[in-house]
């Protein structure tokens, strides 16, 4: 089985979010970048398939040279090879088109991408990729088993879960549950050394439209100070929630 794991290069979850150039661009200054958490759950599941069933795992990112550190980390965790499509990932459709090209040329059976990235939160790349390729697609996937060309996937639904059967080739929109938090791997020294020897291929993008553009960014308005209510005066809290906040 050939697995492609799509990796977004995103600010660490604790990063301060600021913008530059008239609030048109994210300020990367001093920001630590990581593998998008939803992608990392998928990557770890893919490596599990490699260890259990001899799958080959390729990671791919659409982005600039700065994303290579993140791809090297994925290699250090255990992916076999990496591809970077050298383009600015400004629009989900554009990214999906680039990934579709990589999938077609690489003959992948299973594509795992995080259900959304923690930067733009578009939540569209896995679905668009499946749509472009005509592959089966399971989103918000919290468990995945593959047997030959048959897959059994569990997806989260509002208030529960649903078990689905699908056929390879398949696109998965992944999240926590594909593996648990405790199963995530921290690269060890041997992995890091081996990652240096693994292939990281840089491809030029194919022509594709961008269907959207980010015009600018805004930060939420500063919050007014909290109203503290004494623990002995909870009637006041009930009163405020009813009369002031009007939520009960």
């Amino acid at each position, binding site marked *: 089985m050939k697995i492609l794991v799509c990796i977004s290069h995103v600010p660490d979850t604790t990063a301060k979010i600021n913008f530059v150039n008239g609030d048109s661009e994210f300020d990367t200054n001093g920001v630590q970048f990581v593998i998008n958490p939803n992608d990392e759950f998928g990557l770890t599941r893919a490596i599990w398939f490699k260890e259990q069933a001899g799958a080959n795992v390729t990671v791919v990112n659409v982005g600039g040279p700065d994303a290579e550190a993140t791809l090297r980390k994925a290699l250090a965790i255990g992916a076999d090879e990496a591809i970077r499509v050298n383009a600015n990932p400004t629009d989900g459709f554009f990214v999906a088109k680039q990934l579709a090209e990589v999938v077609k040329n690489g003959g992948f059976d299973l594509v795992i991408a995080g259900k959304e990235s923690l930067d733009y939160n578009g939540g569209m790349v896995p679905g668009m990729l499946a749509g472009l390729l005509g592959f089966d*697609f399971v989103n918000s996937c919290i468990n995945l088993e593959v047997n030959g060309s048959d897959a059994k996937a569990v997806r989260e*639904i509002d208030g529960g879960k649903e078990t689905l059967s699908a056929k390879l080739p398949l696109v998965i929109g992944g999240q926590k549950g594909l593996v648990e938090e405790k199963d995530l791997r921290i690269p060890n020294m041997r992995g890091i050394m081996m990652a240096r020897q693994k292939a990281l291929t840089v491809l030029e993008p194919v022509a594709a439209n961008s269907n959207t553009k980010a015009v600018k960014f805004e930060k939420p308005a500063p919050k007014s100070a909290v109203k503290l*209510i004494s623990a002995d005066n909870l009637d006041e809290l009930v009163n405020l929630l009813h009369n002031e906040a009007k939520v009960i």
Partner: protein
Amino acid sequence: MSILIYAEFAEGKFKKTALELASYAKKIAGETGTTVTALTINAIDAAAQLGKYGVEKVLNVKSDKLTAFNAKAYADAIKQAAQKESSKIVLFNSTTDSLYIAPLVAVALEAGYASNVVAQPISLSPFQVKRNAFSNKAFNITEITTDVKVLTIGKNSYGVFENAVSATEEEFSPSLNDADFSVKVESSEKVSGKVTIADAEIVVSGGRGLKGPENWGILEDLAAVLGAATACSKPVSDLGWRPHSEHVGQTGKPVAANLYIAIGISGAIQHIAGINSSKVKVVINSDADAPFFKVADYGVVGDAFEIVPKLTEKIKAFKAQNS
């Protein structure tokens, strides 16, 4: 040229989010001199229910094959409805199902897609919307440059407004092929009789301050009097005190409730990101320096084991008086 909405029908009725979506669409229709059409699947009495919120036409698909949710088949039906109506704007909720379908529809219609939209469009020409980005730490103004636009609208980002019109309903029979049904539902588990985090107006959430899973009773009692869903912080789900499905935060579920009550949650930046779309936030914590107090509207410093049961009693009394 009508605006098309996909109105989710479940368990015999339209969810509140579907009515909000109709209200949202009606507002745009009013400004552009067009009308709202709803695509529904196996809905009953749709025209009467949706007409109240401004939907003039319902295209209802009746099909046994669509009784179980199927993203590809649903997306295909919605695409064909959009083509039949020559819709330039196609709107969805932000439920798990709609977020699954929307990108498939966008690709099929060659439409630009913006998700997490938090308000009415800023401008219709150029078409610009405000959306949540960076896990609710910022907003992003996105311009969609294609002829057809697909949006998913965040819960509670517009509101439900009555706007009664006389609605007509017609049966719609999209042509669906075998490939649409390649992914099949084998089984479904749904907790019944419990408010889900996705639907909840009020969410009561607990953190490590509750000290152990055996202490969740006080939180569940409070949730019960408020008709609220229960949720938890990431450490609590990682420790296995509560199921993952209750984990809210940046890597868990997002919460966009009217009221979010955080009990014994210190308020790590990742947690706040996930719940920040909630309108009113209350924190109960013994540590007055907990970061949650910086983002909360109301705070009580003290022992949750004393405060929460008392608060439950106070709310119970308040509800009895006001009902």
